[in-house]
Every structure is written in C-alpha cells, then in structure tokens.
C-alpha cells in the first residue's frame, strides 16, 4: 500500500485548531462529490463477476454502503443524496443506465429512498459503535448488514407494496431474490471498507460537517 503513503500523510498533518474548519470543509465537499461519483461509476459499470463461479453482482448497493462505512453518517448521507440528485437531474447513473425523475416514482423507488438513510445508519455505527475496531472486516460487516436489513429492505418492500398495491407478505416475496446477492455485497463492502480505513486511519475524523 505504499502508493497511498503521501496523501494519507498530508491528510494527517493538519493539526492546529483554527485551520480545521476551512480545511476540512473543502475536503468534506471533495469527498462527498468523489463518493457520489464513485457510486455513479459503480452503478454505471454494471454487474461484475465474483468468485470462482463468476456470479454477477451489481455494485450500486455495495457502493452506497461503502460510502456510509467510509465517510461516516453526515458525509455518507450527503454523498448518497448527491448521487440521487445526479440521477434526478438526468445523468444516467442509476442501474441499467437509467436516469431522471421517473426512477423516483418507479417500483424500486423505495430502495432508492432508503440508500441515504442506510448509509447514515451504517456510517453512524462504524463511526460511533465500531470506533477503532473499524479496520476489522467482521465489525464493518455487522454495521453494513444493519443498514441493509433495518433500512434498505424494509423501505424497498414498503415501496413495492405501495406501488403494486399488494399485501406486505407479497411485497416481501418480491424482495427475497435480492438476499443472496446482498450477502455477497455486504461481505465485499466490509472487506474493502476495513482495508481503506487502514490506508486512511483519519478518514472519519473529518466528519464534522453539519
């Protein structure tokens, strides 16, 4: 990980209090924008093969949860909201290169609305509950899974229930095909978030926005 030495180093070298606000507000905006672009790029690239069998998984949810786990609650929420904003103003950044406001009223809208909140919850857990343990993949896995199980799936199911005008039980059935892929994605999120936290140990400390 030698290539990451210098940016990490410059990231840690701001100490004095008076500089912190100005400095970190530039960095916060840059990180929020960069992760909105990262989620967009992941959704844009589409499905990638994983493991020996090459099971294809899409990276959108992965990127959303990764954003929360890396940036913390406030910046994570804002980055994911910005990603949704990019799609809303017409950039083809949603799954299958779709875009525009139509997605926000479509059958999977519930999932979309859940993303910023899921990033918020996962980010909160990683930052305040996991704390220094955040460099361990298993810990991040638990945080990310909480966001997924407590926020993404319930809101996704609620969205489909409203949209298709069906029973809760049925909407729940529509959701089940996503579970296995979700487990793979959460594992991936956890492994990568833990490694990136090791590369940038002070990444979360900048979360002082709001």
């Amino acid at each position, binding site marked *: 990980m030698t290539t990451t030495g*210098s940016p990490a180093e*410059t990231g840690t*070298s*701001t100490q*004095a209090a008076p500089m912190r606000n*100005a*400095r970190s507000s530039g960095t916060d905006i840059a990180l929020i924008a960069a992760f909105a672009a990262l989620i967009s790029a992941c959704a844009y690239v589409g499905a990638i093969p994983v493991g020996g069998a090459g099971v294809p998984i899409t990276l959108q949810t992965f990127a959303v949860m990764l954003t929360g786990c890396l940036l913390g609650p406030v910046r994570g929420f804002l980055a994911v909201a910005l990603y949704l904003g990019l799609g809303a103003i017409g950039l083809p950044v949603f799954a299958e290169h779709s875009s525009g406001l139509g997605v926000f009223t479509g059958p999977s809208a519930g999932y979309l609305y859940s993303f910023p909140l899921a990033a918020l919850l996962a980010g909160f857990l990683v930052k305040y509950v996991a704390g220094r343990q955040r460099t361990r993949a298993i810990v991040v896995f638990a945080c990310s899974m909480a966001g997924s199980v407590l926020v993404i799936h319930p809101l996704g199911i609620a969205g489909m229930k409203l949209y298709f005008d069906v029973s809760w039980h049925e909407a729940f059935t529509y959701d089940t095909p996503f579970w296995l892929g979700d487990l793979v994605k959460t594992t991936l999120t956890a492994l990568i978030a833990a490694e990136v936290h090791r590369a940038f140990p002070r990444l979360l400390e900048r979360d002082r926005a709001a």
Partner: protein
Amino acid sequence: MIEFDNAAVVVPDASGDGDRVVLSPTTLTLPEPRIAVIGANGSGKSTLARMVNGLVVPTTGTVRVDGLDLRHDASAVRRAVGFCFTDPAAQLVMPTCVEDVELSLRRSIRSGAARRTKALEILAEFGLEAHAHDSVHSLSGGQKQMLALAGVLAVEPQVLVADEPTTLLDLANTRKVGDLLLGLRQQLLLVTHDLELAARCDRVLVVDDAAVVFDGRPEDGVAHYRDLVAS
C-alpha cells in the same frame, strides 16, 4: 517575501505512541523571486511548501508571507499565495476548462458575463482558448497542468507555490510548464525533482531527513544534492 521563524511540524506517529518530526525547526527569509526546493521523496520538502499557504500549519513557530501571519490572516494569506499541485487531474474541479477558471474568479467578479469574458482572456494567455468549452478530461497532461496554473493565477496571487508541477509530464511539457513558471512576475517557490529547472532559479534549498541541509546558490545546491544521493 516568505519568512519561516522557527517553524516546525510534528505529527503523532502512525503507531500511536510517540511523535514523528516532519520538519524540524526552520528559520528562513526568502526575498528572491525564484526559489527551488529539492530533496528526496518524504524528506519534508512538500511540507515546507505547504506551510506557505496554510495547507499545513506549523506545530510551533510561525510562517509569514508579506508580513501576514497564517494563524491570524488565513484567508488573506491564501489569497496572496497560489498553489499548484503535482496531479493536475486532482485540482481541476469543474467539467469544462472555462468553468474551472470561472470558479477561481467567483469571489472577485460578481457578474457572470464579465466572469466568462475574463476567463476566456485568461485561457487565451495560456494558449487554451481553443479548448475553452472542452471537457477538462479531454486535455493532455501538459494542457491540464497549464489549465490548473491558469486557474490558480487567475486570481493574481503574489506568490505561487508549485509542488512538483512537472513530475507527471513528458519532456516537452516539462519544458513548457517550467518556462512559464520561471517567467512569472509572481514570486515562485518551486518544489521539484528536475535539477535542471532548479538550477535556473535564484536560490536553492536542499531538504533531507526533515531539515533544510543546504541553502544557497543554485549550482552549489544541485551539487550538494547530487553528493547526498551518491553517499
């Protein structure tokens, strides 16, 4: 005029126990128009440069630019000091060239139309007028660095700090960017690995192991650095 008064930077060690000295106490008075800083990677030369506009704040001591102390006049110092980074892609923040220059001008020119006119003028000065409405990503490495400089110099700072601005460029572009930098009317603090470029400055600082180990005439500084590398 850049002044370092016993300025030092110490950060907590990565392992958590103990501190790491990034730059030991340094006292310098730099009135010359063109100053080069050379040294190995990780020697502390970037830190030295970054202290001039407040990207890094000294743990102890002070740094002053034209008498302004960074601690008290942070935003005034930043207006007075432009900063050019190594990777042009990281500093270009807007989608098109003209918009990127406009972003710099946002504080100084209120009217959108006037800002556009001025930005186009500046692009012309840097030979980029043909690319004004192109995506910044469609530019070559050399053009990107020229655009980054245009964005920084648009606000007419008194000092320009450049941190290895030519490291990622090919030979022709290194020469082009180098010529432009050395010809500026602004005072220049140039961190570089290009000894040829360093030799063309008025004064050279050699940084090694978190300290300024040589300060003097360019040819002597370059020779000193060559010895250091050889030993």
